[in-house]
């Protein structure tokens, strides 16, 4: 083995230029893959974070039937054990209680259907950004007042102004028609059409009283320190949640999940093609470098070196070149990604406005996720080794005489 490594190492140095070019090609591919992938993953994270942060949160705990049939009868009373578990989990930054209910909002002539969300303003500020999306007016602070925030389109449709009073009507948990008079303190603009046209934020205690919910909620919404801890935390939460279901953002926002899945496909397609080209480059380089040395290899075989040792030398060369290239590629890729993480690519002009209009952030960010570097490296190494197979098969079939005589 020692001998093989020595030969391989020296062979690489013997033809510095060719080795350097091969390394450069692989490094470039790794760098391109890592930075493209980083941009994708980073932008996904950004979009997930942005979309998830507005309303749904990363994880919600719900009554097991609420997802299929969202009605107040599928609300639950979070027990102390669950709350204290959530409070002690190191990956959970904050959580909030929520009630979602359908209702009517009415001002004199105009009545519209409304999506009522009962919130604890102080907790909600730590969990989601919906209260940061105040367009006009101001947020209410206490969960037990008759102040509300409404979507900015809803305000227009109701033909009322901030400060005006409106009536909300909704069917309570006991089937009774809860109704009360509320004062609009401000409007929200999230970019999500549904929310802007139908969303109403109410203090949770007021809503619980109006809908005869006592301490029941329809969801506990949880904010994580890092989206990458999603699966860990959701698995950890399951036993504490008991019969209640633990839903992740993918369940809560399937359109976003699907949109990302679609974009991911084209990203992976790109990487496939990039690696295909690099693989071809590697095959050709190794093939040429093997063929070029057929005379030399022929002599080696003639003096009694077994074929497999020659093949191992070529494989060792490939591995050494690839590993060196991986180091360079990953360092470069990391540097690029690190730069983009610190200085996200900002869109400007029409596209930026359009993005903002629909609630997306007009920027692209990168990622430094370790698994991405590892995956890319492993794939590259495998591709390199696969690429070495064909040249090595040719080498394995080489007869000593043919090698010596090869021109």
């Amino acid at each position, binding site marked *: 083995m020692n001998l093989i490594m020595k030969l391989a190492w020296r062979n690489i140095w013997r033809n510095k230029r060719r080795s350097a070019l091969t390394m*450069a090609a692989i490094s470039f591919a790794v760098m391109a893959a890592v930075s493209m992938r980083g941009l994708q993953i980073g932008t996904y994270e950004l979009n997930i974070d942005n979309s998830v942060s507005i309303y749904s949160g990363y994880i919600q705990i719900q009554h097991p039937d609420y997802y299929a049939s969202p009605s107040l009868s599928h609300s639950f009373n979070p027990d102390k054990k669950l709350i204290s578990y959530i409070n002690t989990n190191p990956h959970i930054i904050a959580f909030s209680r929520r009630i979602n209910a359908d209702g009517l909002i009415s001002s004199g002539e105009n009545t519209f259907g409304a999506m009522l969300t009962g919130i604890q303003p102080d907790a909600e500020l730590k969990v989601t950004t919906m209260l940061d999306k105040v367009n006009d007016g101001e947020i209410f602070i206490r969960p037990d007042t008759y102040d509300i925030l409404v979507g900015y389109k809803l305000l227009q449709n109701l033909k009322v102004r901030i400060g005006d009073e409106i009536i909300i009507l909704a069917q309570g948990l006991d089937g009774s028609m809860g109704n009360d008079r509320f004062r609009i303190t401000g409007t929200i603009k999230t970019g999500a059409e549904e929310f802007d046209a139908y969303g109403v934020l109410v203090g949770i205690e007021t809503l619980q009283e109006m809908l005869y919910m006592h301490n029941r909620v329809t969801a506990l919404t949880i904010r994580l320190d890092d989206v990458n801890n999603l699966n860990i935390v959701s698995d950890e939460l399951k036993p504490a949640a008991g019969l209640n279901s633990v839903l992740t953002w993918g369940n809560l926002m399937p359109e976003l999940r699907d949109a990302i*899945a679609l974009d991911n496909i084209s990203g992976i*397609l790109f990487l496939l093609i990039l690696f295909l*080209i*690099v693989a071809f480059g590697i095959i*050709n380089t190794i093939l040429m470098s093997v063929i070029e040395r057929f005379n030399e290899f022929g002599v080696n075989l003639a003096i009694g070196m077994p074929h497999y040792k020659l093949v191992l030398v070529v494989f060792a060369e490939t591995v050494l070149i690839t590993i060196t290239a991986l180091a360079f590629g990953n360092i470069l890729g990391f540097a690029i990604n690190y730069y983009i993480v610190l200085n996200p690519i900002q869109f400007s002009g029409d596209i930026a406005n359009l993005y903002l209009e629909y609630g997306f952030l007009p920027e692209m960010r990168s990622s430094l996720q370790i698994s991405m570097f590892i995956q890319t490296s492993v794939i590259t190494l495998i591709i390199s080794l696969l690429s070495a197979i064909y040249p090595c098969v040719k080498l394995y079939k080489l007869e000593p005489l043919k090698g010596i005589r090869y021109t």
Partner: protein
Amino acid sequence: MTKNLLINLAWRNIWRNKRRSAVVLSSIIVGVAATISMDGLTNGMTYQMLFNQINLGTSHIQIHKTGYTDNRLVKNFIQGELQLKADILRLPGVKAVSERVVTFGLVSSAESSAGIYVYGVDHKAEKRVSAISGLIKEGNYLSGAEREVVVGYELANKLNAGLGNKIILMANDPSGKIHSDVFRISGLFESFSSGFDKSYIFVNSDDLQNMLGLGNSYHELAIIVAEPSLAESLKSEIRSAVGSDFEVKTYRDILPILVMQIDLSRESMWIVNMIIGIALVFGIINVMLMTVIERIREFGVLMAIGFSTGKLFSLILLEALIIGLSGTIIGLVITGLIHIPFSYTGIDFSWFSEGLVSLGVGAVIYPVVSYQTVLLTIIMTPMIAVAGAIYPAIKAIRLQPVAAIRHY
């Protein structure tokens, strides 16, 4: 020495060492095939999304009464007496126009009910504008018979209603009064979008107009033009023709996010092509370099017999150019041979992602190659091949003839 001789020499050199040429050629062919297939799939995917949306009813241009987009009320109708349809049909480039009565309503069966968008259409005109009639999986599309309704599979399941079953449709008229009427399911459609299948139903416009007391008024004019690129210019033409009482919007206005995504992915194709190009250059430099080194002796002889360094340089680049051109052509032919059947049959990606269906793409992707990419490939690939040969060529002309001849 004439130029022809140089070409002749280059050509013979290429053929003399078939293996070496084949290696370079294969790199280029793979590069060409990869670039074009990538473009084909990405375009196919995005165009399909757009095309599907347009076909599902967005159409190329829509006309509404001013204010309709902000408040989709039944009372924001276009008066039938205006004969807008006839005027628009006369415009050059317009292929088909359909008048649609659109309202939000409730459908109910004995078991369940749902809020839906009801489209009242003239089945003959609508068939030329939207593809719903082609998506019927069971029963038939509207035929003009009374009280027919076409609903999506998902909705039918929710209502627990099948072909021939009746559903009750309820909606309010322009004055706000609620009307209900009975319809019978004549057809079930299934589009790529489960969201669409859940929330859109189609009836004959006469029935809906009668139910809502609309006379011959309607809400939406959907227009299909000969070429999507004509939409923008026709929009301004129509706008000046119909005046400010009406909103004229193209699919680009109606589907901004989708259009933006397509534009963005087209932009990013340049970056992608560039990266692929650079990856290709590395491969080509390597192989070219090795072939130059292999031939040092031969070059030494050429120089010894009086070949100038300039000519040698040109010779190497010329060889690269010839291989680059042939590789591009062979690559295009091979890609074409693969691409053309697939552009008819499509490639089934359902094994790859279930998400495709729900995203409005459909599981089967029909690759669409843009002529820009083909053109770019034809121009760029031979240039990349030549670029890859520059460094090796410089190496070659720096050789001392005597040292080169001795080299083995």
